[in-house]
């Protein structure tokens, strides 16, 4: 399974992203230019996304034991690269007034994207760990990025330390679990745990699985491993939060999906029970925590906890249901989640800069009348997160419901209903806040540079949100095809 020349083509997206990062580094080395670095990164990510999209239809290749470049991974490569590009575009105006070296941020963003793409292409522990750690390592830097700035709007240092310590501990769990799995199966590739080796009990496999699951659950901020999420989201600069919330989650979830499917983890009843418990806890805890929260980033953090819980339902369903509906559900939901989170954080990014962030709900008071365009997008994104029709979030939730119904997971569905009900409350709180007339104390809608490109990104996301919400059939067809690869 050594590399051959033919492997290079499927690797093109990864190579392109890598080249982008390297080029950015070189350019920084030669002459620091903020605009230059940013445009290199954006262009590179765009090329990678396009490349992945071009490759997608016919590609299905195992590139060394580490990477599997199939339609599924390419689909997510497209999503990740595009999302990373969007975040880069949001970041540019956001960071433009930072009183520090700004170029490395884009370098980190590029490297993080490499990690994420590796993760979605991985069915092997080594690539998983490397991808994950590359992503995390860059994120530590991105989260803490403005820490030298005297008047940073956030708490980057605190966020980064919390993230690093806890994340490293979680990595430890995951690695230990992987070691146990390796001890059982004798291979580092994902493989079935069902045929336990001689002298190995079921409990051993379960413990190994759960150790890995705990690590993954931490990264996905599933309860009870969720507590870092709001603090890190709040403390990070908005574009980094966005990255963490979208790409970080999506890539990790693909790993979880692949791992669970290949290892047959759900054949163990106790794993199903534990997963269900985690799902229910996440849904309830996430939504309840967000209920009366006033900090927008924390709300979105808590809501992401709940959303990961919803997604986990679909994962659990994949064991019970025949066909690929639950895989499709996960896939579509992730796509939807990335779109709506990007949109929601994007709006916040657009009105914020590194020196002053719009992170209190009250900051958005009257936005509907002062910046109707932004408010409309924000509202739609929030409604989408709440799963209201006409938006992609509804179709996504529909998928999850479908998966749940097919598998007869009534308790989980009940949690989903209750959770969504609570969720509505806090999403609507934000919407309502935008509707009420502004007071004198409300800051102006734009604290920084108004960037045309950021607005166009928002427009793209908005269109995607609506188109996928109203006519998702083509995407559904694609997802149905690619889900067969899991």
């Amino acid at each position, binding site marked *: 399974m050594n590399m051959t020349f033919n492997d290079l083509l499927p690797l093109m997206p990864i190579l392109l992203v890598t080249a982008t990062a390297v080029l950015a580094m070189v350019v920084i080395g030669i002459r620091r230019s903020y605009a230059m670095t940013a445009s290199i990164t954006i262009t590179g990510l765009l090329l990678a996304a396009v490349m992945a999209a071009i490759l997608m239809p016919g590609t299905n290749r195992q590139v060394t034991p580490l990477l599997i470049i199939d339609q599924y991974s390419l689909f997510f490569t497209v999503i990740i690269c595009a999302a990373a590009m969007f975040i880069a575009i949001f970041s540019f105006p956001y960071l433009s007034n930072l009183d520090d070296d700004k170029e490395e941020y884009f370098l980190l963003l590029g490297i993080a994207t490499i990690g994420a793409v590796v993760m979605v292409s991985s069915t092997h522990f080594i690539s998983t760990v490397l991808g994950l750690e590359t992503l995390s390592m860059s994120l530590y830097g991105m989260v803490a990025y403005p820490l030298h700035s005297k008047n940073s709007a956030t708490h980057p240092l605190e966020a980064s330390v919390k993230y690093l310590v806890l994340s490293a501990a979680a990595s430890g769990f995951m690695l230990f679990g992987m070691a146990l799995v390796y001890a059982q199966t004798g291979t580092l590739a994902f493989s079935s745990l069902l045929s336990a080796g001689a002298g190995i009990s079921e409990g051993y496999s379960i413990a190994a699985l759960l150790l890995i699951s705990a690590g993954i659950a931490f990264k996905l901020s599933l309860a009870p491993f969720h507590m870092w999420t709001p603090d890190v989201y709040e403390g990070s600069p908005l574009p980094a939060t966005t990255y963490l919330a979208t790409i970080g989650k999506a890539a990790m979830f693909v790993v979880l999906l692949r791992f669970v499917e290949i290892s047959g983890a759900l054949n163990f009843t106790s794993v199903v029970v534990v997963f269900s418990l985690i799902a229910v806890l996440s849904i309830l805890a996430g939504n309840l925590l967000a209920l009366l929260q006033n900090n927008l980033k924390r709300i979105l953090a808590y809501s992401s906890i709940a959303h990961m819980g919803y997604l986990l339902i679909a994962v659990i369903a994949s064991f019970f249901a025949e066909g690929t509906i639950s895989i499709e559900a996960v896939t579509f939901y992730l796509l939807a989640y990335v779109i709506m989170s990007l949109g929601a954080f994007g709006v916040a990014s657009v009105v914020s800069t590194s020196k002053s962030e719009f992170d209190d709900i009250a900051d958005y008071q009257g936005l509907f009348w002062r910046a109707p365009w932004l408010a409309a997008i924000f509202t739609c994104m929030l409604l989408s997160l709440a799963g209201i029709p006409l938006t992609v979030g509804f179709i996504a939730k529909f998928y999850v419901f479908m998966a749940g119904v097919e598998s007869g997971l009534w308790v989980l569905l009940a949690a989903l209903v209750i959770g969504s*009900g609570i969720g509505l409350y806090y999403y609507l709180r934000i919407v309502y806040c935008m509707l009420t007339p502004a007071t004198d104390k409300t800051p102006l809608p734009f604290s920084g540079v108004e960037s045309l490109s950021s607005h166009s990104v928002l427009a793209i996301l908005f269109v995607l949100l609506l188109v996928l919400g109203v006519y998702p059939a083509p995407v559904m067809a694609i997802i149905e095809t690619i889900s067969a690869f899991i």
Partner: protein
Amino acid sequence: MILVVLIGVLFVGGVIAWISERINPDYPRLIALVAVLLDLLLMVILLSGSAGSEAQWLASIDAQWMPRFGISFYLAADGLSGLLLLLTAFLGVIAVGSAWDEIKDRPGFFYFNLLWTLAGVLGVFTALDLFLFFFFWEVMLIPMYFIIAIWGHENKNYAAMKFFLFTQVSGMLMLISILVLAYFHYIQFGTFSFNYHDLLAVSTGGELEMWVMLGFFIAFTTKLPSIPFHSWLPDAHSQAPTAGSVILAGVLLKTGAYGLIRFAVPLFPEASLAFAPVAMTLAAISILYCAKVAFAQSDIKRLIAYTSVSHMGFVTLGIYAWNEQALQGAVMTMLAHGLSAAALFMLAGSLQHRIHTRNMQDMGGFWPKVPHMATVALFFSIAALGMPGLGNFIGEFLALLGAFQSNITLTVISAFGLIFASVYSLWVIQKIFHGEFASTNFDDSQLTDLSRREMVYFGAMMLGLVWMGMYPQTFLDMSAAALGGLLAGSQELVTSVVQN
């Protein structure tokens, strides 16, 4: 195709109305009026064109939407839908009228929401794909939420939130039920389908059927509303601007009843039969309990809201009696209540517009000041208490008459609602218009009689009610075929169950 046009006109009209505000703040209302009038016209053409035909479906369109799940864009209207479409368009015109002077603030967005709500309702009344139905079911909520949350009164946030939460959460239960049905179709026929006709053929059976039915039932009775899911309504109604209340009471509540007739019962005939006593009990409790609570209110809009719950109880009662008279009664009650409740909310709204209070304790003796308004109010109060000769009577009488054949005890209990209705209806008239005029608690300088334009709207509604009351056959004939079809579909099964 005409159905798509009907809905499309409103969607597009809404967007244009919104945009046109930039040109001139008076344009939105004109555009909205044109859009709803156009819809009304189209509907009249549609309905009159098919008056003689025996075909069950007056118009339909079926296009693939999400083939992965067998979801199609399937709209169709039969007589039942037709009636409700007509009601919707008619009240749409009325709602635009009632907002004409009231909404000065951001009119573009207001009419956008109004038209979109109406479009959603039209969709609900015509969708025959259950996914599409659910889609529209939810679509109509959001603009309504905005209407309440932006143009509502003092406690609008609470009311709008409550409205949204109730309908959404119950809607999710319905979604689960719909999915279970689709899944059962998959199990039994090998494909997913959300098509109404396909799902009618699905037999869920057993205990599960009851649970699935309950999903629908809860969603629909929340919207209807019926005890114990009614408590969003008084808040929503009292806080909404007049046009919002008109649409809410006149049209939105009817979607729940429509859902029960079209979906909840036909899809689950056995479970519905078993559940009928419970549903009818809830209806009876709604009728009496809410009539009593209505009487205790001092906020006039809250009072009317509770009476709505009470009246919609007759609808539930009629639907679960499931025979021709009862169903026709339910449908007639829906139509008549649509007009009478809408008119009462408009009256309350115009009062509030004039004296800036809804508290009846502050009112009294308005008759000489506003004789026209008083007469109109008297008319609609009397309609609400079920005076023969007006539409509400036909509906409630037929509903009770039909219900009596299926459950005597509950019908008798419900009939007491007629007494309670007279208590609160007359109390309102007494409190507001009778007695000595006293204006100590409000500024009476604005207390003027109804304008000519308002009189036209009220006149139209009065005519409608009299028409329904004196010659209901127009409406009964329209829905007869549709209801007959629904009845026939479940009759066989029900009789076999009864015999066993």
